[in-house]
């Protein structure tokens, strides 16, 4: 029997030691094992996307070309964007933590469609393999947005291969979303009413709606680009009678909601962390839950704010500008409710809580600068500059990735049965926070001063900020390597976690860590969520 390294020994029967063969993992229908498969895969892809960013930051240490050629640089930022957006951020929390936790949190034995769940992982693997093949063959230089007509007519790189990869991975998302929607609707345990659902589940539900409704539009759009490239007919190329603006409309109809695919799960994680580490039920549960749905719905109505300078009408611009401002309302509701939850709580600054507090600060900066960009006049000035880069990295890295890291630490004992080393956890969280801000805050200034994105060289007066940013990036890299090292270490040497090491509320903490194959030995009965006021913390 081939056994898999890094899997620690367990004395009781749990999902990890139920069977040991490689086939039992590759053909598993257990949502927990599929979550682990996804976790390994997205970590690899994250490392690849991150390496591209490291080379870019090294190149930008000096104003002129020193390390890579202009074309290589184009391929690097395309690789970084495509991998990080489609193969890391979109599946990150839903496919790993979501896959693991959705059935556990609602007291179900598995997702509604386990086979579809496994298919979703295989689609992910096929899609990422294709995208990485295009990298090995020489890369793609279109930017992650695949803007036409460059991508359809002019680029001489492996666009079709990359597009096919993204097309396939889209179906992986659709299947995950479909599975979550059905599971949350139909498989809640007795007592688990809609308004007793953990807030993480509400955010997963909102995310799934976007998965199901937005992703097919991207699929069709990319298929049309491929068709234009293969047949040489004009769908989006104006020289052949097509309309490039239509491509941008269709692309952003998916890709703006996709931003909320990335941030909504993070918000769900933060809601769980804040309540646990302030030992309080959330302030305004219904408002937090409904603001997730509001963000999902509003997210479909704001796409053209990416196109203010692309030649859309001024009235269209006005409407999309105002609708974009509306997204600030549910986002702010969440931020205010989290901070109100902290008020008079018994706050404990453990690693996950450090990530959660970091998230709130960074998300606020990212969100507020989003309002600058939604303003027509300001956007004219900072469009396609580093200001935009800084803004969306505050949301995606400062928000989504921080939340993923926080959630990974929080549920690590549940997933593996082992405790991570707390001191190292806090050190890494602090390093990540510092490194992140040093990397991306200078980029706001760079963008405001006018440095455009996607260039391999820049004017010498921008060098100070670029050096700061590159230094920050190296600190950030340490901040990612550290958890990677100690989390792996903890698999072998970590202390056993016990069912509920953090004294958290929620059904997932009532079962063993790691959970048995069918999650619960007996179907649980759900009471009020977040019943922290009923719990005894005298020994903490």
């Amino acid at each position, binding site marked *: 029997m081939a056994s898999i390294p890094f899997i620690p020994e367990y004395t009781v029967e749990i999902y990890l030691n139920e069977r040991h063969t490689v086939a039992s993992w590759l053909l598993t229908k257990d949502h927990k094992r599929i979550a682990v498969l996804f976790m390994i895969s997205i970590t690899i892809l994250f490392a690849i996307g991150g390496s591209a960013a490291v080379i870019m930051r090294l190149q930008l240490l000096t104003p002129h070309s020193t390390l890579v050629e202009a074309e290589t640089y184009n391929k690097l930022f395309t690789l970084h964007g495509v991998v990080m957006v489609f193969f890391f951020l979109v599946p990150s929390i839903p496919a790993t933590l979501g896959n693991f936790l959705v*059935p556990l949190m609602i007291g*179900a*034995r*598995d*997702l*509604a*469609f*386990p086979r579809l769940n496994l298919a979703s992982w295989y689609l992910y693997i096929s899609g990422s393999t294709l995208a990485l093949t295009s990298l090995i063959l020489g890369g793609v230089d279109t930017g992650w947005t695949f803007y036409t007509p460059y991508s359809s007519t002019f680029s001489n790189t492996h666009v079709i291969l990359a597009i096919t990869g993204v097309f396939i991975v889209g179906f992986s998302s*659709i299947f995950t*979303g*479909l*599975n979550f*929607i*059905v*599971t949350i*609707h*139909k*498989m809640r345990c007795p007592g688990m009413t809609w308004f007793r659902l953990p807030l993480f589940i509400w955010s997963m539900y909102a995310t799934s709606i976007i998965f*199901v*409704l*937005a*992703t*097919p*539009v991207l*699929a*069709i*759009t990319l*298929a*049309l680009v491929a*068709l234009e490239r293969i*047949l*040489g*007919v*004009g*769908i989006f190329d104006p020289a*052949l*009678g*097509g*309309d490039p603006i*239509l491509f941008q409309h*269709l692309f952003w*109809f998916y890709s703006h909601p996709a931003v909320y695919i990335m941030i909504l799960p993070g918000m769900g994680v933060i809601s769980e962390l804040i309540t646990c580490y302030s030992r309080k039920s959330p302030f305004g549960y219904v408002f937090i839950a409904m603001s997730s749905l509001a963000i999902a719905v509003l997210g479909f109505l704001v796409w053209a704010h990416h196109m203010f300078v692309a030649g859309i009408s001024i009235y269209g611009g006005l409407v999309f500008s105002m609708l974009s401002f509306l997204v600030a309302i549910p986002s702010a509701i969440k931020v205010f409710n989290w901070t109100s939850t902290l008020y008079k709580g018994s706050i404990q600054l453990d690693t996950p809580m450090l990530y959660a507090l970091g998230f709130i600060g960074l998300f606020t900066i990212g969100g507020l600068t989003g309002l600058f960009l939604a303003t027509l006049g300001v956007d004219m000035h900072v469009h396609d500059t580093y200001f935009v880069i800084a803004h969306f990295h505050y949301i995606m890295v400062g928000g989504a990735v921080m939340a993923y890291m926080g959630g990974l630490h929080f549920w690590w004992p549940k997933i593996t049965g082992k405790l991570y080393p707390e001191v190292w956890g806090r050190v890494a969280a602090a390093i990540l926070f510092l490194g992140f801000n040093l990397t991306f805050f200078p980029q706001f200034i760079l963008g405001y001063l006018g440095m455009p994105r996607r260039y391999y060289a820049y004017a010498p007066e921008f060098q100070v900020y670029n050096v700061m940013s590159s230094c920050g990036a190296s600190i950030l890299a340490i901040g990612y390597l550290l958890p990677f090292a100690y989390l792996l270490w903890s698999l072998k040497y970590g202390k056993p976690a016990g069912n509920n090491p953090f004294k958290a509320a929620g059904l997932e903490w009532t079962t063993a860590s790691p959970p048995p194959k*069918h999650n619960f030995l007996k*179907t649980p009965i759900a009471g009020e969520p977040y019943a922290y006021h009923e719990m005894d913390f005298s020994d903490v």
Partner: protein
Amino acid sequence: MSELVAEQFDDLAQQTEADTLGMWAFLATEVLFFGAMICGYCVYRLLYFTAWHRGSLVCDNFRWLGVGSGGWNTAVLLTSSLTVAIGVRAAQLGHNRTLSLMLSLTLILGIAFLAIKAAEYTHEYHEGVVPGYGVFHPDDEISADLRRDAARSHMSEVVLRRQFQLFWVFYFFMTGVHALHMLVGIGLFTWLLMETRRGRFTPQKHAPVELMGLYWHFVDLVWIFLLPLLYLVR
């Protein structure tokens, strides 16, 4: 009982409800899938009115007994939806012979639809309207029409032909993806027919029949949108 219900479900009712909701959620995805194409179609229809008007006329001129291929296909497909609906009812009542018959009829009608479509594609190939570099060269009659259209609307003939080609890109893409859905449906109906022959469906458990019914009606509904958009709009 345990054989009927997958291990993640409590009982058959829960499983059936979950399966049904899953199919509806999948169809929601499909709506947006076709919706994006229809959106693109509408944009170009408005932008390139003259060329696309000619496109619809050419599209509708493949006729048999005075009725266009679009009309024939609509009749075939709507009838197949009827046979599916009767089949679902038969499954609910446990009338397995009727179910087999209806599934077979549906298969025949589905294949008939694709046969008509194939004949139409062949006809269009000979007219030279299949888009693509080196393939697209409309025959003399269509070229003469296009020249007249260009003169009447004071447009360059080259530009008009390009827009006319774009109509055919959308025509083949939309009907092609629809036909692909038909093919998948035919494959699944064949499987259903085999399962029925083996006596796998009972009045208590026949969710696959119901779900395939939903799917087939959806594919039918897509055609109901494609027909006026491609063939009937003037």
